[in-house]
């Protein structure tokens, strides 16, 4: 299979969706000639025209609201927020409108929109352009939340998000855009709500989201040399959450680390931890659950401070060793 980047995978899914379904259109800031803040919409306006690949004013509330209104009346809009931090400006339309309309109207209207956005730290963009706020959206009934960790998942999950009849929040990670992977040339869907075991192992489970999946795989390769077998589970979608796959993995390994880039305090890692802690497994674990997440600080711009603000590969290695240091009867 050919190899393409995560960014190309996103672009390809958008291209295919625009070709397949004339109700699909894109709107957002600088998505036309400029190709989007990170290049995800490169070439699409040239191919599909300025009506279907629409540059908007800098008006996040109007972008999101227009997407809601268009989605309710027969279109399938895909809106881009240049940086996920800008969701604060679009929040009312996503949280109070898009999420609630189907329920509030007794099922009589659908809001099939996709909000795509670039999230996460690592580019030195500072506190207002580097956050991981996906947990906010996961807290809202009515929204679906997707966080692809590689190019293959990005393409298949984006296709599924576009076909979904609900508002789907699609979080792309800036540092993953340049990573490459094997991606089929034809269009395919990966169902929302199905976790993926990225690495099979027997001693300890790491449940990791987004960019932490890649770091977990690197940590697994390091500890493998010491004879520790790590299983890496990627939920892929925070809502709906495939609790069964997470629980089954931890039932097998009896040790678990939960890792997100998002700030640890009140973060989605707490939800993932609770899924394990509230299951029958909790009393059978061989070691306490370890939770890794971002420090409780606004993201600093300076390179080394920025790296210290989120879990890195060595923090995962340390956590694995800490968990393995418990003997089964100690916990």
């Amino acid at each position: 299979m050919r190899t393409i980047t995560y960014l190309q995978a996103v672009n390809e899914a958008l291209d295919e969706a625009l070709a397949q379904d004339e109700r699909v259109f894109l709107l957002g800031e600088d998505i036309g000639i400029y190709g989007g803040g990170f290049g995800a919409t490169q070439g699409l306006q040239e191919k599909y025209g300025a009506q279907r690949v629409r540059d908007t004013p800098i008006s996040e509330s109007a972008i999101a609201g227009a997407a809601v209104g268009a989605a309710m009346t027969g279109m399938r809009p895909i809106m881009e927020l240049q940086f996920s931090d800008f969701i604060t400006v679009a929040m009312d339309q996503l949280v109070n409108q898009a999420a609630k309309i189907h329920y509030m109207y007794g099922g009589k209207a659908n809001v099939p929109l996709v909000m795509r956005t670039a999230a996460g730290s690592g580019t030195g963009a500072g506190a207002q352009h580097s956050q991981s706020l996906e947990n906010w959206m996961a807290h809202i009934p009515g929204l679906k939340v997707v966080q692809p960790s590689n190019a293959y998942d990005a393409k298949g999950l984006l296709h599924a998000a576009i076909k979904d009849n609900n508002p789907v929040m699609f979080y792309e990670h800036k540092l993953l855009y340049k990573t490459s992977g094997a991606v089929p040339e034809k269009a395919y869907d990966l169902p929302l709500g199905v976790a993926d075991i990225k690495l099979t192992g027997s001693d300890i489970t790491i449940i990791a989201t987004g960019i932490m999946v890649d770091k977990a795989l690197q940590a697994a390769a390091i500890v493998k040399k010491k004879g520790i077998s790590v299983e890496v589970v990627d939920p892929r979608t925070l809502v709906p959450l495939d609790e069964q796959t997470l629980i089954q993995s931890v039932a097998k390994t009896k040790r678990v680390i939960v890792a997100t880039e998002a700030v640890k305090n009140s973060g989605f890692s707490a939800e993932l931890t609770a899924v394990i802690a509230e299951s029958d497994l909790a009393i059978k674990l061989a070691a306490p659950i370890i939770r890794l997440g971002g420090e409780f600080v606004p993201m600093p711009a300076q390179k080394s401070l920025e790296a210290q603000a989120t879990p890195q590969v060595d923090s995962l290695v340390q956590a694995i060793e800490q968990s393995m240091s418990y003997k089964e009867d100690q916990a």
Partner: protein
Amino acid sequence: MNPKISMTEKNGRLDNVSALRKMWEIRIFEEMIQQLFDEGELHGTMHLCIGQEATAVGGAGILDQSDWIVSTHRNHGHCIAKGTDIRAMFAEMLGKKTGTNEGKGGSMHIADLDVGNLGSNGIVGAGFPIAAGAALSAQMQGSNQVVLCYAGDGATNEGSFHEALNLASIWQLPVIYFIENNQYGMSSSIEHMVNIDLLSERGKSYGIEGITIDGNDLDEVAQTVAKAVEKARNGGGPTLIEALTYRHKGHSKSDKLMYRSEAECRQWQKYNDPIVRLETKLIQQDQMTPEDIRLLEGSIRNEFSSLVASVKQDEEPTSNDLWTHVYAEENK
């Protein structure tokens, strides 16, 4: 009852007799829900539009069924004028499964997409961009539909108003932004909340024609909206209409009306009631007698009393309904 009484005569002019009936339906609907609330039959809140019936009937009432409206928390008039089933509205207010929203919306979220009612909104100003989106749909689909977006005077101070008007203007969307200036945003006099004389002036900074009209004169409302609709259908883009009106009742059920004088209220209620003004005109033009009007009013009251009695027998949602419609189903 026929909720779709044609409001226009063959020559395209407003049929004022039908319009009066609609205005009375709105007023009596609201008087009855107020009474149900006072009797403890109604759970939740409501925002009455009594005194503003001309903006509902002269606006939503003259659109085609396929056109859309986007409404506000003060929505009952807009919903009725657009043809939303009144029985289902009573049922929604009374928390019945037969309600417009199956009881899940309540007063502030009444929607009926089948008659072009895209729904009412509890967030002030949120409808502006949603209306732009619906108008964008119409434009992209070439459907010839227009969107009428209602909002109150206070909503023009929300950022969403400014973002949406700009978007509607640069894309020349078929949308009419209709501001019902009833003088107060909850307790705040609009006079103290903006530093301009007319809210319609705000259209100018977005390249949108702005018009201020007498919102209690049904004919003036209907003619202004009809012109804006025609312009929008012909690709002429959006219009901003400010209709001056007054709500007779408080903001919501808990309002003690400390912020306005009795003299002011009396002035509007006695000398500028849109229903009385239309009735006076109909009587002067020999289209109706005072007795015709009393008979009309009485028949609506009787009809609605039977409706409410029947709705009270309807089933309420069951606990299973708590969990339905959180997510839309997937295409099979």
